[in-house]
């Protein structure tokens, strides 16, 4: 089963990496969506069905659309879409910082003696989730609902702007 995991991980990382390296915005967005689906696949592998489907629904279904709309609304010609790294210096700095973080994280992970819980795949049914959510986590659920609503309103306001531009429906 580790093989599957490694495969998923590699594919996800590859698509993410390529996405952030491509000059073409659209390609980057689509590849990122692919990496999101890879993460969903990981959730599935881990036995968290619900999260996996939620991930697909939210990211592939909704966020991707917002991203694409944003990309298309913030360009004047196709030329705008080809944006490489700003400068070699910045790229180097970015790689340095990212590398440092990765090194630290990796060291931490490997250094700590982790023991995977034995036993078969753990899984949680949707019913349990629902009871858990509406029971102990009801307040948090309400808060999240509020946040989402406000975010939606704010987004519409920001994007609509002073000049009434054709306002895109947000998922």
């Amino acid at each position, binding site marked *: 089963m580790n093989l599957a995991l490694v495969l998923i991980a590699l594919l996800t990382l590859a698509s993410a990496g390529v996405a952030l390296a491509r000059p073409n915005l659209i390609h980057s967005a689509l590849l990122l969506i692919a990496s999101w689906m890879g993460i969903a696949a990981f959730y599935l592998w881990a036995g968290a069905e619900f999260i996996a489907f939620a991930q697909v629904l939210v990211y592939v279904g909704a966020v991707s659309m917002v991203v694409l709309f944003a990309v298309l609304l913030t360009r004047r010609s196709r030329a705008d879409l080809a944006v490489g790294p700003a400068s070699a210096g910045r790229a180097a700095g970015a790689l340095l*910082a990212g590398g*440092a*973080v990765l*090194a*630290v*994280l990796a*060291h*931490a992970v490997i*250094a700590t003696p982790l023991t995977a819980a034995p036993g078969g795949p753990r899984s949680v049914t949707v019913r349990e989730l629902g009871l858990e959510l509406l029971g102990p986590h009801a307040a948090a659920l309400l808060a999240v609902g509020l946040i989402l609503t406000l975010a939606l309103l704010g987004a519409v306001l920001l994007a609509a702007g002073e000049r009434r531009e054709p306002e895109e429906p947000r998922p």
Partner: protein
Amino acid sequence: MHLSVAHLWLIPALPLAAAGVGAFLPRRARALAAGLAIGAMALAFVLACGALAGALAHPAEHAVANFAWFDFGPATLRLGWLLDPLTGFMLVMVTLVALLIFIYSTGYLKTDANFARFFCFLSLFAAGMLGLLAANSLLLLFVGWELVGVSSYLLIGFWFQRPAAAAAAKKAFITTRIGDLGFLLGLLWLYDATGSLLFYDGGHGVLEASVLGSLAAHATMGGLALSTAIGLLIFCGAVGKSGQFPLHVWLPDAMEGPTPVSALIHAATMVAAGVFLIARIYPLMAADLAVAGAPVHALTVVAAIGAITALLGALVATAQTDLKRVLAYSTVSQLGYMMLALGVGSWTAAIFHLLTHACFKALLFLGAGSVIHAAHHEQDIRRLGGLAGRQRVTFATFAVGMMALSGVPFLFSGFWSKEGILHAAEGWDVSRLPLYAGLAAVALTAFYMTRLTAEVFGGRPRTDAAAHAHENSAVMTVPLVILAIGAVVLGFWGTPAWPWLQSRLRGESAVLGVSWWDGAALMALSVGLVALGGVAGWALYGRKARTDCRAPDPVEAAAPRVYAALASGLGCDAFYAATFLRLNRLAAAAADFLERWVWGGAIWVVAGLGRWVGRADRRADEAGLNAGFNAASAGLRSAGRRYSRAQTGDAHGYLRAMAIAFAVLALLGILGGSH
């Protein structure tokens, strides 16, 4: 289908919901508002029938559904719903009458701008009334009680543009408040004495033997039994709500409201709430009868008040010239009858009269409304007349109601219920006066009802308003017909021969008894009185009908003084104006003086002080403190300028800084943790 007490709350809840929704409807959504209210009422009626069926299945028991409302300290305040034949009958009556009047109103107020608001208020009233009826807790009953009070205020003042209406609404509200103050005190005292406000609670309710015994046993000031004192305080509320003698003055003025309101609230249902209240807590009122040597019994007071009210109302009604005021005073007198019945110990007779009266008095008011609506809001009976031929349905139904009210024998419900009351009064061993008062009122009732009918419908129209009157649409006439049928039929479930209703209320099963000969003599007497009153009325007003609307009333011509006194309601209003209101005005003046000079002066002095301190402070400030602050802030400003260079505004820079900082910190953490 039986409705169990567990779901009784639905009956008040439906109109309440209708009111709640109706409150948010736009003004132009007329049909929707009316449909909402009527639909909710119809549903409530169906449910009420179910409730009655459920109650009659076991008439002897009081089915209750109690629930905890909230806790304070150790105590828990509990409310509850109660279903027994009394509640059942009242629920059916109220929902039916209310339903008919709602339908009628759609016709009566067709052209009113605030149509939607009207139905919202009506629903609110219905909710309060039904909650009051179904309550198993004196507190819940009080809530409904105040709710109907408020909605009555809103509805009397529905045409608040008319100053008279606004004044009447205020008067009604304040007058009933006076009574409700007593009610509230009694309620608190009762809770203090028993620790519970539930009527029936499996042996611990305030209407159950154990509690009543202790209440009657304790004596308070003046040797009154505790139950007597509490009962009398609660009775104050009933006096206010049911327009009994000292506080009856608001009811005639309440006629400023739209006629359907007068019919529903100030004739059929709300004013009867007082009677219902006393009937509901009858065990409490009667608890002191067992006590020997009590100075006065609660029920005696009730009987006295009732008798006085019955007579006074009937007397005053004979000299009123406003169509609706006559009916209002007759309502006062009939309520007096009911109180009388309660006082002399026959609460079943009282409820029987309440039900029949609700039916025919609603009928009379709706008939009056139909006349007024047809005659372009002409209410003065001297300026009407000759409508018999023009409004046939209205006339026929009104005649039925009039005969039922004045107790025309055998066929009409009013006769049987009034007989029951007189019979009970005759059987009372404390005093005969209530009986005589009642008998006198019988004759007077027949008299003024004949007068009213003759003036309005007899002769020929005396103004062109009356001349152009014509029958109203079906939405207004059909309820009249239904109520007329009720006014006849209702009598036959309470005849002495077969007292089905009374025995059901008492939780027994009816028996077909022929043992009513003992009441025959009295019956004959009252029939005679009715005939007397009727004939007198006919002789004075019917035989030769008035032709000129300015001509004086025959009685007025005969005895102007008496007539004037009667017309002014025996000077009750004047008396109150001379005493309470003047007192009130004095108090107001005193308070004004206090406010203006005593407190005002004090405040002026304090303010002056404050101003002076403020001035001194400012000087100190400017001279001393500020200098130091200026120096400090200058330093801060320069420092800020220096540090703000780091703030480039480049998001990447920040992010990179964060990342590296994180890496470094984590690294330190790891190294620190490893050895």
